[in-house]
């Protein structure tokens, strides 16, 4: 019996993402004040709160619709690079999801991979550029490898979340090569990238929701 992630579990993932972002907003803003414009926490709180409100209005009935609506909501409420990048992540996930009410493990893997590839294409960033890609790329790579090894979905997502955390922490010594932090040059080293930090929260929230929300 394949493991599947229901639309309710996906909604739970996004609700959890929103509450974790709110909890850690000050930290995200602190990270952003070191190498950016000190608004990442505020912007993400505003965006994820809008997502929660959007999901609560019940206007989406399939996984594809839901993820696309999340993407558009983030684009129009977060602002700046983060809005476009998180928006692209969910729009691409939505485009690569079925018009059904659940995702099986391989559908989730495909959608996440498409989302990450969309972010890479949009921002022209690679691993090592000190961006959210440093957390997201290893997360989806580990997810795919773990599923291919025959591990279950919830264990594989937990491994992906651990990989995101490691990737996030790897950004600390890096010199930024993308975004406004890149204008700082060497002075951007010594700080965790705020985008990698919020992206890690996203993957961790998924792992927590998958652990609870899998229909077996």
């Amino acid at each position, binding site marked *: 019996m394949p493991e599947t992630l229901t639309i309710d579990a996906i909604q739970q993932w996004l609700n959890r993402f929103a509450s974790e972002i709110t909890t850690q907003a000050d930290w995200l803003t602190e990270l952003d004040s070191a190498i950016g*414009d000190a*608004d990442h926490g505020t*912007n993400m709180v*505003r965006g994820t709160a809008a997502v929660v409100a959007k999901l609560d209005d019940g206007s989406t009935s399939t996984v594809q619709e839901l993820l696309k609506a999340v993407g*558009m909501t983030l*684009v*129009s*409420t*977060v*602002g*700046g*690079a983060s*809005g*476009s*990048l998180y*928006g*692209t992540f969910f*729009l691409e996930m939505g485009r690569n999801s079925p018009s059904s009410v659940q995702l099986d493990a391989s559908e989730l893997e495909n959608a996440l991979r498409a989302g990450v590839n969309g972010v890479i294409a*949009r*921002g022209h960033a690679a691993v090592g550029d000190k961006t959210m890609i440093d957390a997201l790329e290893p997360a989806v790579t580990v997810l795919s490898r773990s599923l291919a090894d025959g591990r279950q979905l919830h264990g594989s997502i937990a491994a992906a979340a651990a990989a995101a955390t490691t990737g996030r922490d790897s950004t600390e010594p890096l010199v930024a090569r*993308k*975004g*406004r932090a890149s204008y700082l040059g060497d002075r951007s080293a010594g700080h965790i990238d705020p985008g990698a930090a919020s992206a890690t929260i996203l993957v961790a929230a998924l792992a927590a929701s998958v652990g609870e929300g899998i229909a077996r």
Partner: protein
Amino acid sequence: MIGIVLVSHSEALANAAMDLALQMVHGTQPPIRIAAGAAGGFGTDATAIASAIDDLATTDGVLVITDLGSAILSASLALEIRASTHQVVISDGPFVEATTAAVVGAAAGSSLADITAEASNALSAKKTQTLTAPHASVGNDTAPGSPAASAEERLINPMGLHARPASLLVQTAGEFSADVELTNTTAGRGPVNASSVIGLLSLAASRNDRIRIDANGPDASQAVNAVKQLVLQGFGELS
């Protein structure tokens, strides 16, 4: 006429850049939309850019001009989520210079392809003027040959061939089918095509510099004469 969308992190910056560029338009103004700021502060918003583009759906194409990094990112996402299907190009030109080139070019009725090239090349005037070596020349891609009509005049207006006279000259030359070129013979810069305000600025022509006007085409002598009159009248800046 093509339309222009200005994408900036700052609404004040976008408005000022637009006003500065419009100073150089002396007839019908091109349609311009501003998509600036996000959530009441600095930032760019792909949905606002998309609706600005959709708003210009009846133009002959749209050039999107951006300021800092994420403006490009938001503009590229806007191209995906817009409702309209008309031609849109994201410029790689510098914000203020490209806005100037695009506004003047659009007002003169240039095509989207030509304006895209002008905007992209919009730093060349600044580069030429900051070169220490004399006789720098840009934009000379016209084959040499005998012009059908020529004239040489001295610039008499106090500020020389700055942006406003240059745009006036582009509009005047654009009224003729002849190909018009200008050379700053005093400084040895040019020739440059008179359809390009950026090219004309690269002549760095000051007061008292001598300017040669060459034209090729059926109405070459009328074109030379019209441009010559502009120069002789000091581009209307003498009073």
